[in-house]
């Protein structure tokens, strides 16, 4: 699920260069062929195209686009997901969502979790990439170690970290008692529970930001650094005025992918806290969609939250694209 969604935005940010390449870098034969495209290929070629593309397109249409539209329709209904009948109730679900106090607690949890996850994993990922880009013996092992948790299932990490954070018998408790610090109750205190879930998420996903930043650092041109050194720029100045601007496209790409991914977290939260403690201590919007639909059997209300979430995602992505566009120009 994860890399899947990460790649979502890989595609978004990088789909244009390859497309351009197909036009500009194409040898003359290709241009000729393109010319013929307008008149269309032979019938046999068109049929083959359909035969190769349609199965995939049908699956995506059936299980991605159809439910996306259907989800919006469902948000205007009162429906318990198993019954064959549903009642049209107009904007009632949206009005209920706006007026219910728990909606805003959940939105707040989602914002805190997402912001902490995005900022935390990107800052740490960049710091690690800078560290492991240095000539240090054994950096290969550390690189692998940092990336490894990213391939472990969120569910498995959730199970493991639930015990690691056990307030009495867990590893964190063992570490804190060693230095005589009080052990917070990660299971009962909503703030500490949200902290626990966020730290677990960052531990798992840090490796992704790290490898993307590392690849970007390795691709940077050395001349700029030579110039910076000749100008007598210190390390911090070089970092601020050379490295960071060079990394801007990568930072932009990561800010979108990591945000989209962390907004969608279900496995870690379900396994570790079931959205609790105290009702909705760690409930995020995605988790609330699950709860309302599959536990409270209010699929219409669940669909409403899912629709709101999707609209917010669209708006945030659009804003990020505009802001970054302006900065890069």
């Amino acid at each position, binding site marked *: *699920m994860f*890399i899947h*969604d*990460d*790649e979502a935005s890989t*595609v978004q940010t990088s789909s244009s260069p390859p497309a351009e*390449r197909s036009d500009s870098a194409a040898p003359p034969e290709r241009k000729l062929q393109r010319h*013929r*495209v307008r008149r*269309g290929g032979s019938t046999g*070629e*068109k049929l*083959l*195209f359909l035969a*190769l*593309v349609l199965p*995939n*397109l049908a*699956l*995506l249409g059936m*299980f991605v*686009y159809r*439910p996306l539209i259907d989800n919006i329709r469902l948000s205007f209904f009162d429906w318990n997901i198993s019954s064959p009948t549903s009642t049209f109730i107009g904007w009632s679900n949206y009005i209920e969502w706006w007026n219910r106090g728990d909606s805003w607690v959940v939105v707040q949890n989602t914002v805190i979790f997402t912001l902490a996850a995005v900022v935390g994993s990107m800052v740490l990922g960049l710091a690690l990439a800078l560290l492991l*880009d*240095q000539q*240090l013996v054994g950096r290969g092992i*550390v690189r*692998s*170690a*940092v990336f490894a*948790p990213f*391939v*472990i*299932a969120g*569910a*498995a990490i959730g*199970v493991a970290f639930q015990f*690691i954070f056990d307030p009495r*018998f867990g590893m964190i408790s*063992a570490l804190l008692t060693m230095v005589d610090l009080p052990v917070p109750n990660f299971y009962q205190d909503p703030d500490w529970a949200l902290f626990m879930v966020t730290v677990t998420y960052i531990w798992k996903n840090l490796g992704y930001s790290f490898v*993307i930043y590392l*690849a*970007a650092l390795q*691709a940077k041109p*050395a001349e700029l650094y030579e110039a910076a050194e000749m100008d007598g720029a210190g390390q911090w100045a*070089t970092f601020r005025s050379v490295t960071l601007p060079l990394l801007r496209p990568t930072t*932009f790409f990561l800010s979108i992918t990591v945000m*989209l991914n962390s907004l969608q977290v*279900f496995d870690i939260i*379900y*396994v570790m806290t079931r959205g609790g403690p105290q009702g909705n201590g760690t409930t995020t919007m995605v988790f609330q*969609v*699950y709860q309302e*639909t599959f536990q409270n059997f209010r699929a219409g209300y669940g*669909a409403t939250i*899912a*629709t709101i*979430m*999707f609209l917010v*995602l669209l708006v945030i992505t659009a804003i990020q694209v505009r802001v970054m566009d302006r900065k890069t120009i």
Partner: protein
Amino acid sequence: MNPISGPSRAMKVAGYLAMLLVLAIIALPLYWVIVTSFKTPDMVYIQPPAWWPDPVTADPYSRVVEQVPFLRYFANSLIITGALVSAKLVLGILSAYAFVYLRFPGRGVVFMLVLAALMVPNQITVISNYALISQLGWINTFQGIIFPLAGVAFGTFLMRNHFLTLPFEIIEAARMDGCGHMKLLLRVLLPMSWPTVVAFALITIVNEWNEYLWPFLVASDETVAPLQVGLARLISTDAYIDWPMVMAATILTITPILIVFLLLQRHMIKGLTSGAVKG
């Protein structure tokens, strides 16, 4: 940070200390899981928690196999992952071939339609998909888990980008020799594409092996539930939790994917970064 002069001695020492710290943060939780999986149940409930099992016992591992249908979950994971990876490889490679080498009116629009599917989060489609799957009577079946996940957007994109980098002269030459489409794909293109195919396969294996939400919703018992769903069920009761057994199950669940990762990480990272860095 500065590639020309190289870091000073103090920076080097700081660098190694930082590396040790990072290694500890990644390795300690895994160490804790492993140590716990070799403890007796009593040993878990002493305070302060012990960093080494005493006595060391492998019983938790036998309890996993005895008390949990662990091998069944494992087989289900293999079936689901195997089916999805084969389906996605075939669909992705064929679609990419069509998008690069076949003429069709509106080809670019169709490609965007495939690509845009990546922007739609799973969580938004589950309600409607669940209703559809239950209408079909596919709840708690393999086809119910597999079909909704089988469409491939990322792989199509990855393979298409790769095909676009292959020299067109070779393809022209093969066509002049009367090479048909299937022969061109299997004999000419794929042999030049193994690194990309491997990256595609690896990313898909990791994704599908780790998938949780959809199998969790569709699988109601161990007949089709994959490992991740089965593992999470072990701590779903409020009753007594046999932590050494749960930690042993966790080790058994994550080991296969970690082995795959350690052997082939370079290919996987190449696939992940190929689109990201150019941008």
